[in-house]
């Protein structure tokens, strides 16, 4: 086990470094418009005494943008390994500070989404499996497929259109209303909750489909298994058969599905956050990437790669934990 873990961790680290190198190379193709902007500003500040081209060269040198891609990457990697990801060009703050300010909004949103998702999709998935080829099954299947087929930006916009523009019952975007600082603690929580309804609904609709199908497929497999027939033959009530015997076995593959959620849990929902302008990690990093904010973009992509590798390793371990029959390696 530990041998496997060490090997897996080493491999993960290697993949992360190589992946970061690829990302870095691509991102360096962006003309450093930030540098140019800053150089022009500084030049204007000096009443044009210093040419902005000279300043640009100096700035490029300071930010390590003048060397080759490889040397720049090595420099970045060295700092990153020490935990120093530099200052975000766009937000003018250390990247990690921006990150710690916004990450929890994303996580909060994802936790709520996870609850909603599980509460809706697992019962529906089980229902569909039990009533296979009945009307309920068809409805659930079509619903699940429709959820998968919907573009996230479209659900978000339609929700906004219906609830914020037409019915005017929910706030259009943002995380805080204008009275946020006037109301008490409960008022604040209520305000945020109100603002989170649509983003959470969007994310839930997006993820319900796949989880529902996943549950249904696994449930069907389990229901056809011999031990279920045995359980029925023993004369157990349908409730016990489903909840105790079938459902628990369904959980095995589901657990791995959940460990795959790790990246999206902390990585934020870029498009949904952007549509609703939720100041989470997805929205902030989208803005930063559009602006060519290299430190922030590098941090975010690396962070995502770490999460992905972690989730892969976690799912391997979880397999072994949940199902003792599975041997690691």
């Amino acid at each position, binding site marked *: 086990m530990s041998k496997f873990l060490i090997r897996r961790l080493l*491999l993960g680290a*290697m*993949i*992360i470094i*190589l*992946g970061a190198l*690829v*990302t870095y190379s*691509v*991102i360096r*193709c*962006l*003309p450093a*418009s930030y540098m140019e902007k800053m150089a022009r500003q500084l030049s204007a500040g000096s009443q044009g005494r210093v040419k902005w081209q000279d300043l640009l060269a100096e700035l490029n040198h300071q930010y390590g943008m003048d060397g080759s891609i490889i040397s720049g990457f090595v420099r970045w990697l060295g700092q990153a390994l020490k935990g120093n990801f530099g200052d975000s060009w766009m937000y003018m703050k250390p990247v990690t500070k921006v990150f710690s300010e916004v990450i929890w909004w994303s996580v909060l949103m994802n936790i709520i989404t996870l609850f909603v998702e599980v509460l809706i999709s697992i019962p529906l998935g089980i229902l569909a499996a039990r009533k*296979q080829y009945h009307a309920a099954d*068809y409805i659930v*299947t*079509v619903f699940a*497929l*429709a959820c*998968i*087929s*919907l*573009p*996230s*930006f*479209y659900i978000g*916009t*339609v929700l*906004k*259109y219906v609830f914020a*523009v037409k019915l005017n019952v929910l706030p259009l975007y943002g995380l805080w209303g204008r009275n946020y600082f006037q109301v008490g603690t409960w008022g604040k929580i209520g305000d945020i909750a109100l603002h989170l309804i649509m983003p959470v609904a969007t994310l839930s609709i997006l993820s319900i489909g796949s989880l529902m199908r996943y549950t*249904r*497929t696994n449930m*069907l*497999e389990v229901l*056809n298994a011999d031990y279920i027939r045995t359980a029925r033959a023993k004369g157990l009530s349908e409730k016990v058969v489903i909840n105790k015997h079938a459902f628990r076995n369904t959980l095995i593959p589901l657990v791995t599905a959940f460990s795959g959620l790790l990246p999206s849990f902390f*990585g934020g929902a*870029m*498009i949904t956050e*952007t549509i609703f302008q939720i100041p989470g990690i997805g929205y902030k*990093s*989208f803005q930063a*990437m*559009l602006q*060519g904010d290299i430190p922030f*973009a590098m941090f*975010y*992509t690396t962070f*995502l*790669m770490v999460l*992905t*590798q972690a989730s892969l390793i976690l799912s391997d371990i979880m397999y072994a934990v949940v199902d003792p029959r599975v041997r690691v390696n």
Partner: protein
Amino acid sequence: MSKNKQEELNKQKAPQEQEPEQMKLDDARRVKVLSPGMLVFKRFIRNKLAVAGIIILAVMFVYSFLGPIFSPYTRAQMFFKEVTEPGKYATGKFNTDSRFIGEAGTPVQSGVLKALGTQKKGNKYVLTQDQEIPFTARNEHYTLKVINPSETAPACAIYGTSHAATIGRDGKITHQMDNIDEGLLAAIQADAEAGGKETEFDYNGTTVSVEISKIERKYYVPSTESVAVSTYNIYTPIQGKASELQSDTEFLHAVSAAVMAGETAVSYNGTDFVISGDVENGFVLSYANGAGLFNISRDYRYGTVNVESVDAEGNPVTEEKGFLETLTDPEGFTAALTEALNGDAASFTFEEAEYTIEKTDVEIHVIAPTGEPAVVISNNFVPVGSKYDALNADKDFVFALETAIANGDAGFEFNGEQFALVDNGDDYTVQNAAGEEILLASDIAYGAESKGIELTLDFVKKLQEAMRNKENTFSFVDQHGEETEASIQIVNGNYYVSTMQKTSLLDFRAAPTSAHPLGTDVNGMDVFTRLMYGGRVSLLVGFVVIFFELFLGVIIGGISGYFGGVVDTILMRFVELFNAIPFYPMLIILGSVMDNMHVGATQRLFMTMVILGILGWTGIARIVRGQILSLREQDFMVAAEATGIRTSRRIFRHLIPNVMPLLIVNATAGLGSVILTEATLGFLGLGVKYPMASWGSIINQVNDMQVMQTAWWIWIPAGLLILVTVLGFNFVGDGLRDAFDPKMKR
């Protein structure tokens, strides 16, 4: 009754029932043998959702790929609507400032104003007739003579003094007027020798003024010719025949035909015109009474030679190059042609090539030996205008006119021609000897608001009438001969005239109508048609990307699975690396890289396809590898290996067909997700760009709050199309999965 019928029924039933009974249960005829493909197909079409998916996709394909053929509109056609709204037409003003009409560069205006105080209408400074005011402007001496002493409309004539001679201290003449009279020069020299201090002396009744400085003496004599006239009046020529005729094609046709036929006179609508001049110097068309009307010049419009060149977008550019430019000696050609035309020849030879001349009523065509028209000669008309047009800028004419007005005369003579002056109370009309009205003199200034507006005489008259009668509206005949209503607004003494004008506005965000079933978008394009072209791009991207992914995935997955070992390990690490790169962040970064590099629309579409393919092939590679790994160990592969079939055949004939079903299922479902990804990119503004469209980039317009709130037809249909299409792919994918593998429940 029942018994007989029952028997009959039994008889009918009997043969059908008997037949299967004769067969055994495992009779070969009972078993319908279906090919595996047929089996899959049968299972597939039994699935209602899958059939629904197929129908959806068929409709989408017809809509996207055949729709544009039948659509009356093109991809990026913009629509405009005509709106009639009040627009500024002209401005009128009671003129209270003097106009100065004189030779160009007469530096008198400020001097005159100084001499008269401030020369404004209503000024209490009253001048008596023939009062002379001497004044100096820029070292030149002038005399101002008041023509019209009335308080309301004083008109002045300005006379200059001529610099007759300058004589230096040494008695030498340093400057002398060209036509100075000998006696005057002698008098000046005598005065200079005397060295008196008087600033003027008299010579034969002319007062000569002297300017004395330390180094020289300057002598000035009064000029008998006025240099400028100052007046409040504005003159409007009363005829516009030249410009009217210029837009009359029938008239032009008649003149052209006459010019081509070499005639010297032409009659049109009862008016006689005279043509003079020749081919080389151009023709002049005049009225029979001698008033010039048009200059006609022959315009060589060359036959064109096409040069194919390509612009940055790769579209061919057709550059027109004149026939003459292709010749080495164009002057020689022109000379030969002119000679032929003057000699009325039917053909001529130039550089050993025979050119034919063909004359039509209006044009002359010169045909090259190849049979192609080389040169077309047609007529260009430039109006000369009436001779009266020039009169209102002629200071002498104005002087004569103003003097007549001041004296209350009924007419005046100018350049030997008699003019009658009609007093209309507020203004005056000038008639020529023939009794035609030629000029309107009034103190109301006017001007058109924009270049395209030509103010008609009728407008000027009606405007002046309305201004004097303090009316707010009036109607007039405009330059196109249409009766037009105008309204007047007075701001700070300016009379702004506005008329209802038709303007063409971009018909953007228009609600659905029968012409535009889904309205128009923010660029004024038909949404229904845009969606067709958007569908083309969206579906095309889906298919190209999936084929690209399949290509990469099958090759790399296949090699990895078949060979295993080190190759497998290396390739799989490679796959993991690609898998680790975050998908959307990478797309966004690459999208903004392309934005920064200003990649063209078509190139961008290809780049997007390649990027989506490169970032997406790993899934297929894994599936292929896994499948091949398990197939490799199966008995039929061992058998294949044992028979000694070569490797490539083993892979492509035995392994790949077995992977095919899984690939088809995955590719179908993958198509949906690629379309979704592309749409998302389009929505974020990082996908295909104008003039191309994709469903995602059409929804992109919803980022404008106004579109979201007021124009649902722009973004709702595009989203529904994406949803329905992806749903269709998912239905079909699911159906295929079930059909290929009945054991695996959906």
